[in-house]
């Protein structure tokens, strides 16, 4: 199952990379979106391939060493490790809340165009509302 999980993104990555290279070479004087699209394809393809190949290699190695695979699974599910990871994420989120707010304020004071700031503000508020939504959902669940 893990090999499938790795090979699909790896194959998609190679495909996207090939499409990107083809577009870079094949397009003569691209216009509009097509100017950036080939490079987005190459970048996305490389990223997907890297992630998929890593997953695939990992799965292949672990298949040969079931004892290590079991230890890794224990480490992953270990309650202390999970707690530490959740706590670190929470601290990161708290820091992000203040840092992004300060950055948005700085952008606004610098007079950066409204079209740039607005999507950032919307994304920022979405994340904050999502955190509130998760809290309410968990209040009902637990």
């Amino acid at each position, binding site marked *: 199952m893990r090999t499938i999980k790795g090979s699909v993104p790896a194959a998609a990555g190679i495909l996207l990379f090939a499409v990107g290279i083809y577009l870079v070479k094949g397009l003569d004087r691209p216009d509009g979106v097509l100017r950036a699209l080939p490079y987005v394809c190459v970048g996305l393809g490389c990223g997907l391939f890297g992630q998929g190949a890593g997953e695939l290699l990992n799965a292949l190695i672990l298949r040969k060493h079931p004892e290590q695979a079991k230890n890794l699974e*224990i480490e992953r599910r*270990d309650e*202390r490790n999970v707690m530490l990871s959740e706590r670190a994420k929470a601290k990161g989120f708290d820091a992000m809340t203040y840092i992004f707010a300060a950055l948005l304020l700085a952008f606004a004071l610098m007079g950066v165009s409204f079209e740039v700031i607005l999507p950032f503000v919307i994304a920022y508020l979405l994340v904050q509302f999502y955190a509130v939504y998760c809290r309410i959902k968990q209040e009902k669940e637990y």
Partner: protein
Amino acid sequence: MRNRLEEIRKERGIKQEELAAALEVSRQTIGSLENGRYNPSILLAFKIARYFGMKIEDIFIYEEEQG
């Protein structure tokens, strides 16, 4: 909360690694429990108690926080 995990484990001649493997947790978790840096979930506390054939309160001792 205080616990007698290290004492009980050593009494029975079990290594941290062996206990960790039996409880399906990491060795670091056992170390942190023994040092008192980490308090286990109720599930892990039950697993530990069951592993040693004891009651939870014989291993984990609740102490009122001071000050």
